[in-house]
Structures are given as structure tokens and as C-alpha cells.
């Protein structure tokens, strides 16, 4: 069989430089239009959409061979811990025959000419760069070999590359360093290359440590706030006490300006959706240190105007969600019609499923999922220098082109006057798809004419940050004997703001999607991601939402709808299995439709010792999930016994504990198993948080949480002592996505295990949310919790820490 050939470009440069279109037409084969059956996401999912929306792009990503023989690549993606730079270095090293450590991958500034090709989301980075980066590397290798052929006096086809050298059959060799200039091109032209066959891979598929691991553990890794930008002094913001509130007046400006270290105090718009959304405002303070910013923010006497949702609380939102939820309409012997403004997507004809079945029993349930934060450890940060008609910005944006364009808009500049640098981020999780902080920084810098180093306080992130919207999921399943006849799931949510992330891409692809013209943006995202991995008879999925997209500051949170949609679904699958007297794992194995998913399930069954004897109060839960071109099965054991759940660690949310986790993951072709495992491990920790502890409480127009500890993400005391991730052998010749894959699955598995351990299925998440507000609510005015002064005597536990909280008691 003839090997596929790929098109790239040799670029005129002093040393060897090659370029390739990132996911261009010449590289990727056209895909047939998807059919809307079975579930749309099985044939045309979010990663397809992201891939397709990148096809028209004409511009190049380039690999450069430096004079010292090392290789440089500037990747148009964010690196926030997910490991994409390490993966890219592995791809280049593999194709070129060079050590991974001799490849340096940096993050590209905003490049508007790349259009959709510069966004980091939807677990699509590896999928989208896999072939183009290899093509560029293969072209570079070919040029080095040709240059070496002359020097070595051998035919190019006899030469091979390894360890950064070109070797002849006779054993002589020449290092890349001596070839970098010789292989350079004087004119830019097209060139054709072939790729290394999968069966010759030596680096891909082997665990590789992160490219920045040493820098990270020695404190040398530079995050945005660590960058040396002269005169960019610390800046923070005094925000209104309710969501999207406004400044009416600042009553003690002169007094605050005179405080120690303070250089500037200025009112700014904090409108995060320039030109299309609601507006809000706040007061910014610039000072010599962040500590002095905090003090000045809290000293401000501001008359605040009302916010956007001042009358809303968890209870009012729940009532509105329930009112917007359409009535269920399965099982039904007739065609399914539109109901209550919701368009159900029927994936199997109901009539066929109902044909000849006997008496049908139905189970119904409603699940409630409260607000969640996707805050990373590094807060929202941006450095901005807006002077002399130019703006230079540093911020770890997941979508720097949008950041650049929005900044240009609010500053009254053209995008060409705005440079956006992308430092490595301290976590992203969808949060950095929004440019709020960069807009804040640009506005302040423009207003005062000085550079600023702007950081959101942790309290800002809880109360003015982006949240995963509160939602409900209703499930109705019907069965006859041991046959599932139908499964209907209707999801109703506070609107998710997708305008800055998926919005433009989906619009650009509207003609290719079977349903995009009929459904809203959020429904499109839902249908591209929601999946039912099992044969459950007639399946109907519906999505509805309340409010305009910007009523609350919501956004894409790691794994989108599946962090709620899948747990609700899997809990009902467990109930179906119980009603039919079947083992939960066998029930799933019998009905799972995908072979890879089946293999993952069998693997966790065997490696995780499914069905082993466990004491009363300890139980297992298992699920499988398909998304991002991959499958993952998660088996967990949850210990709800009193001795565990009621253990005392001061200030900790203890409660039931996940003791043991077994994950089997199949992403097609795993590039870096070590990094892939890390993504699964992190997804599990987030799933644990979603079930037990992590939520925001909405009361009278704002969230009560004001920091970590209030927001209870998984901590060491909640983390499972045993976690085993098994990377399945390659099942394909292309990699799938991993960053979000485990979140929904882990959330579902933990919820199922907890239900079996306690004998009671939870229907509200996280389980402790409605029980109590287990912390002292921090003040809204002044807006920031003051830093304590007892740090020399309060270690390890802060003196303000309360008793342990058990969400399940």
C-alpha cells in the first residue's frame, strides 16, 4: 500500500525552517457528513467540530532547527498543566530522530491569521496537532538528511537520524548543528513528505516527564505574575457586593490615594462581554505591593448600584428550572413531537422499540446540580502596558485571538496594535476561555497610562468569576421484564455562556451540522457532547435553559454538561439494573455498544476486583464513558462507615471517602501515557469534589463562598489513597482527547458507589450542599477578606478553621 503523502513548506530563513498548515485540507481527509442517528455525538462530536472549524485556515506553524542542533517550535495553544508542550516535543523528536530534551516548545502570541486554530478547549489539542506537527518535523528531517548526504557522501535514502545526528550506513555521522545552516532554504516553497510508520515509533507511547517538571519543583517556572515587566505594579479591584453590580460613586478617593504604597485609584468598566452583554463596573487600585492593594480596596467607601440577579438565590433558581422543564414524553407509541419548546433528539425510533413488548414499568427521577467553580490555583492574572497607541498584554489565555480582539475593541484600537503574549498558566479548566482579567488590566492601564500587574483576589474568583451553571436533569426510563424499552433525559440549565469559546466556531460550521439551524448554541454543544454509551431502547435527549447567556457569569467548565448529565444517567442505569436483579457491571457490559468501551469495562472489572467482599457501608460503583474519540471506565470504592465519614481533621470536609480507584482509558493512540494518566487522576479528583463537596451557594444575588476552604474542592484528606490508571494498548492510529474525559465518568462512578454503600440514591449534588453552609460567610463590603497576622503560630491549620464537616451526616 502506498504511504500517504503530506504537503508542507520549506521557509526561507538563516537556518532550516519548515512550515505546515495546522489541520489544513492537504493533511486531513474530508469526512462524510454525519447522520443524526444514533446519538449525534457518536459520529460527529465536539472534537470533530473543533477540527472542522480549523480547516479553512491558510497560515503556517513552523519548526526551526537552530544552529546548536536543537529544535524550536512555537505552539499556538495554551499550556496550563495538561502537557501539550511535552506532547508536541515528543511528536517532533519521534519524527526527527532527536532527544525530546533537545526540542523546545514555547507558546505563541495571539496570531489572528490562525483564525480558529488558536484555542485550547474541548480536549482537542492533541487531536488537532498530531498530524501537522509530525508533517513539519518529517519535512525538517528530510532536509537535514539531504544536506547530510553531500557531506557523508552517501545516498539520502541510506541515511537515518538518531540522537540529533544523521548517520550513514558506513557508521559516519554528522550532527544537526552542522546541518542547520546548510539545510536552510533561500526561497519559500511547497514540499511533500511522508510520515514515520506507527510501527516504528520509539518515543510515542512511552511515558515522558513534563518538559517543565524541574522548573516547577524548583520555583523557577515563570507564571504571569512572575514575569519581569518594569513598572507593572500590583493592581487589584474592588468589586460590587452583588453579581454584575455597578459603581455609583467613590466617596473617599483622595483618602485612599494617600494610603501607603498606593499610586492610582480609578473606576473602570468590568463589562466582560464588550459590545453585547450587560455592563458592570468596579474600582481598581494600583500599589507597590499586592498587600497594599488589598488594604486600599477594603478602605474604599463606594456607593454601589444594584446587580444583575439581586433577587435570586438557589431556591428561586431551582423553581425557575423546574418551571422551564418540559414534560417527559417517552414512552410513546407515536412520533415524538416538540414539547414545551424543547426539541428532543430521538435516536432510535420509539415505535420499533415498543413493538411487541409486554407491560411496561417506568421509573422517574429528578437530579439537581448546584453551581460549581472551575477556579485554578493560579488566580486570574494579566499584565498590561497600554501606552502610546499600543497595548502589550501577558495573560494565560486559552483563546488569545479573542482576547486580542476584545482588548482592541475596548481600547479603541485595531487588533494589530494589541500584542497578546501567552505565558504558561497555573491551571485553566475552561476558566481562561474568558478574557475578563485581561480586559480589566487593559482598561486600567489605558486609563492611568502606566503598566499594571493585575490579579484577581481569590474572593473575586468565587463571587465575580465564571461558574458552571446550576441545572437539573430529569430521567424517565421504562422497561419490560429485563428489557429496557426507553430512556429519556431532559437537562434544564441556567444558560451557559459559550459566546467566547464555541460560539464562532459553531456558527462557521452551521451548514454542516444536521441540527444547528434549529437549536440554540447551548443545545448544539449539548447534543455534540451528550452520550448514552448503552443500548437503552428508544433514547431521547433534550436540553433547555433559562436566562440570557450573560445573566450570570457562566462558562465552559471542564467536561461541560457531562459532569451532570452522566451522573444522573448512570444512577438511573444502576436503578434499572437493581430493578431487574442484574449486576451493575454485567448490566452495562451486556448493553455497551462500543467495543473499546467494553474492553475498558472488562479491564476495570478484572484489575479493580469488581464484586469483591466489602464490609457494610463500603461499596463499588462503575461506569464507562465515550467522548473525545476515546473511552474510559472508572471503578471506585466509597467508604461511608462512621469511622471514616466522621473522622476529625480541623477545618476539613471529611465525610465519606473514595478509598480505591481503578481507571482504564483508551484514547486510540496514546502519545504520552504518563501525562494521560495524570489527566485521568486529575479528572477523578474533580469528580470526587463534584459528588461530595464542591459547590457555590447563591443567596440574594451573590455567592456566599469567598475563598478556598469555603469552596471545597478535593483536598488531601478526600483524595483516594489508592488510584490505578491503566492505559489500554493502542486501538487506533490517531490520538483522542484526554483533558476532560474522566470528569463526568468519575463523578458518575463515585455517585453510584455512594448510592450503593448507603442504600439511598442521592438526587442533589454535591450531597452536602443543601444541608448547611459549613463556613462563616466573609463580608461583601468591604469585598476582600483581610490577610491574617497569626501565620507564625497558625500552622498547619489556620486559626479561623472550624470543626470538621461531614456532608453526609
Amino acid at each position, binding site marked *: 500500500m502506498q504511504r500517504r503523502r503530506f504537503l508542507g513548506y520549506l521557509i526561507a530563513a538563516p537556518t532550516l525552517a519548515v512550515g505546515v498548515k495546522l489541520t489544513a485540507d492537504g493533511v486531513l481527509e474530508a469526512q462524510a457528513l454525519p447522520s443524526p442517528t444514533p446519538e449525534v455525538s457518536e459520529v460527529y462530536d465536539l472534537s470533530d467540530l473543533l477540527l472542522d472549524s480549523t480547516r479553512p485556515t491558510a497560515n503556517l506553524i513552523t519548526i526551526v532547527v537552530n544552529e546548536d542542533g536543537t529544535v524550536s517550535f512555537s505552539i499556538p495553544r495554551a499550556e496550563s498543566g495538561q*502537557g501539550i508542550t511535552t506532547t508536541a516535543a515528543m511528536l517532533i523528536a519521534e519524527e526527527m530522530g532527536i532527544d525530546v530534551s533537545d526540542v523546545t516548545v514555547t507558546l505563541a502570541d495571539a496570531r489572528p491569521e490562525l483564525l480558529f486554530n488558536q484555542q485550547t478547549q474541548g480536549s482537542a489539542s492533541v487531536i488537532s496537532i498530531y498530524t501537522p506537527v509530525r508533517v513539519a518535523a518529517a519535512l525538517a528531517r528530510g532536509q537535514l538528511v539531504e544536506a547530510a548526504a553531500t557531506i557523508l557522501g552517501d545516498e539520502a535514502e541510506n541515511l537515518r537520524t538518531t540522537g540529533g545526528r544523521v548517520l550513514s550506513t558506513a557508521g559516519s555521522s554528522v550532527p544537526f548543528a552542522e546541518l542547520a545552516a546548510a539545510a536552510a532554504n533561500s526561497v519559500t516553497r511547497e514540499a511533500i513528505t511522508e510520515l514515520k510508520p506507527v510501527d516504528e515509533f520509539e518515543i510515542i507511547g512511552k511515558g515522558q516527564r513534563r518538559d517543565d517538571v524541574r*522548573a*516547577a519543583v524548583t520555583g523557577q517556572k515563570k507564571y504571569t505574575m512572575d514575569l519581569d515587566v518594569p513598572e507593572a505594579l500590583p493592581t487589584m479591584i474592588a468589586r460590587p457586593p452583588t453579581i454584575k453590580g455597578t459603581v455609583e460613586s467613590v466617596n473617599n478617593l483622595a483618602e485612599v490615594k494617600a494610603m501607603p504604597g498606593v499610586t492610582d485609584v480609578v473606576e473602570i468598566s468590568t463589562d466582560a462581554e464588550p459590545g453585547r452583554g450587560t455592563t458592570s463596573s468596579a474600582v481598581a487600585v494600583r500599589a507597590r505591593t*499586592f498587600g*497594599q492593594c488589598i488594604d486600599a480596596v477594603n478602605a474604599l467607601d463606594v456607593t454601589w448600584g444594584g446587580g444583575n440577579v439581586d433577587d435570586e438565590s438557589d431556591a428561586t433558581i431551582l423553581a425557575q428550572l423546574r418551571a422551564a422543564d418540559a414534560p417527559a414524553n417517552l414512552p410513546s407509541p407515536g412520533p415524538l413531537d416538540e414539547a414545551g419548546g424543547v426539541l428532543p433528539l430521538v435516536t432510535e425510533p420509539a415505535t420499533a422499540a415498543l413493538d411487541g413488548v409486554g407491560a411496561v414499568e417506568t421509573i422517574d427521577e429528578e437530579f439537581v446540580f448546584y453551581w460549581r467553580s472551575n477556579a485554578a490555583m493560579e488566580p486570574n492574572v494579566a499584565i498590561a502596558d497600554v501606552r502610546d497607541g499600543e497595548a502589550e498584554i501577558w495573560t494565560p489565555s486559552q483563546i488569545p485571538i479573542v482576547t486580542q480582539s476584545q482588548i482592541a475593541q475596548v481600547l479603541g484600537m485595531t487588533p494589530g496594535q494589541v500584542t497578546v503574549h501567552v505565558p504558561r498558566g497555573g491551571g485553566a479548566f475552561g476558566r481562561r476561555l474568558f478574557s475578563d482579567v485581561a480586559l480589566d488590566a487593559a482598561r486600567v492601564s489605558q486609563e492611568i497610562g502606566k503598566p499594571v500587574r493585575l490579579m484577581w483576589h481569590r474572593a473575586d474568583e468565587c463571587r465575580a468569576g465564571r461558574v458552571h451553571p446550576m441545572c437539573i436533569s430529569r430521567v424517565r426510563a421504562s422497561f419490560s421484564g429485563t428489557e429496557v424499552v426507553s430512556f429519556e433525559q431532559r437537562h434544564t440549565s441556567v444558560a451557559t455562556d459559550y459566546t467566547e469559546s464555541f460560539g464562532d466556531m459553531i456558527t462557521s460550521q452551521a451548514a454542516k451540522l444536521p441540527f444547528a439551524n434549529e437549536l440554540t448554541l447551548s443545545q448544539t454543544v449539548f447534543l455534540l457532547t451528550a452520550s448514552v454509551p448503552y443500548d437503552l431502547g428508544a433514547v431521547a435527549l433534550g436540553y433547555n435553559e433559562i436566562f440570557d447567556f450573560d445573566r450570570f457569569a457562566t462558562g465552559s467548565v471542564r467536561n461541560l454538561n457531562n459532569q451532570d448529565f452522566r451522573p444522573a444517567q448512570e444512577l438511573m442505569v444502576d436503578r434499572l439494573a437493581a430493578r431487574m436483579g442484574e449486576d451493575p457491571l454485567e448490566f452495562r457490559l451486556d448493553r455497551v455498544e462500543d467495543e473499546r468501551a467494553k474492553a475498558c469495562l472488562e479491564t476495570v472489572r478484572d484489575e479493580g476486583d469488581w464484586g469483591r467482599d466489602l464490609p457494610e457501608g463500603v461499596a463499588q460503583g462503575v461506569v464507562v464513558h465515550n467522548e473525545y474519540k476515546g473511552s474510559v471506565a472508572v471503578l471506585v470504592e466509597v467508604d461511608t462507615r462512621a469511622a471514616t465519614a466522621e473522622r476529625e481533621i480541623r477545618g476539613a470536609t471529611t465525610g465519606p471517602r473514595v478509598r480505591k480507584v481503578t481507571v482504564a482509558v483508551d484514547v486510540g493512540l496514546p502519545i504520552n501515557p504518563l501525562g494521560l494518566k495524570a489527566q485521568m487522576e*486529575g479528572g477523578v479528583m474533580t469528580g470526587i469534589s463534584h459528588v461530595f463537596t464542591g459547590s457555590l451557594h447563591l443567596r440574594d444575588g451573590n455567592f456566599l463562598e469567598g475563598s478556598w476552604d469555603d469552596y471545597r474542592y478535593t483536598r*488531601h484528606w478526600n483524595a483516594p489513597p489508592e488510584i490505578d490508571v491503566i492505559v489500554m494498548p493502542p486501538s487506533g492510529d490517531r490520538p483522542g482527547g484526554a483533558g476532560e474525559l474522566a470528569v463526568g465518568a468519575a463523578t458518575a462512578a463515585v455517585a453510584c458507589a455512594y448510592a450503593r454503600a448507603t442504600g439511598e440514591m442521592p438526587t442533589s449534588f454535591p450531597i452536602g450542599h443543601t444541608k448547611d453552609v459549613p463556613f462563616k460567610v466573609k463580608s461583601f463590603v468591604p469585598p476582600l477578606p483581610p490577610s491574617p497576622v497569626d501565620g507564625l503560630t497558625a500552622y498547619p491549620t489556620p486559626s479561623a478553621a472550624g470543626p470538621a464537616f461531614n456532608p453526609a451526616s
Partner: protein
Amino acid sequence: MPPHTFKVNGRPVTVEVEDDVRLLWVLRDLLKINGPKYGCGINVCKACTSHINGRAFNPCSVPVGQIKPTDEITTIEGLPDTVGADLHPMQEAWIDRDVPQCGYCQPGQIMAAVDLVKKVKAEGGSVTDDDIDEIRNMCACGTYGRIREAIKQGAANM
């Protein structure tokens, strides 16, 4: 502004700043020692964990006026020097296990781990899962499993 003199990572420093500015900002904003990270500013996330006179503490919650001229502050940057090597055994374990994802919390995690191991060793024991459960340092990437392994590995070489 009063001058404050103390030692950081073996080096004497003097800074002029108000007494009540928390040490974290003195280290980061004035001395440009960026290993200790800001995560909350109220001593709950522990991202800034460093050592004072060999014991862990959180500089976000200590006014610089409380630091005495004889106090020795150690940040992640100075940790290897405390064992006279390029890397502390805990850092080596962290690299070996490829612990970090985004890495932001890891300097604090390592400083907390070193303190914990020193404490249990001084008490004649060895570090247990229950000890590790009580570490308060937050990690939003969810690297807890690898941290647990790395602490045990690092402890064995301390």
C-alpha cells in the same frame, strides 16, 4: 518606612516597607523571590508555604514587622541548599514521579512535605497516609495521588 533586615535563602536582605505588609508580598513584589505563590491570601490554600528557621509557615499571614533580624526564611529556591545539593530529595522524588501538572501549588506542596517528614522523623516515626491526609495544600489539577507517592519516596531519602 522602617527597614526590615532578615535572611532569605542564606542571604541577608534589607527592605524598606510598612510593618504590616505581609511577608509574601515582601518576598514576591519587593525581593522578586517568586517561588512562594499567592493562592488565597488568608492561609487556607497553602500555596505560599515556606520555612522560617526550618519550620513551615505561610508568609501570606505574617506581617513583615514580626520577622526578627535573626530569622532565616527558606523558600523553594533555597531548599536544595539546606541539604547542600542541587536538588532536595523531596524535589527529586517529585521529578521522578512527574508530580506537577500546572505546577503552581507544587513549591508549597514540597515545602509542606519536607516539614511534615522532618516533624514525624523528629518524633521517631515515619510518614503515614494519615499524616499525609492532614496536609492542607490545595491542588486544583488533582495531583494528590502522585504527591502521596512522592512524599513517601522523598522521605525515604531524607
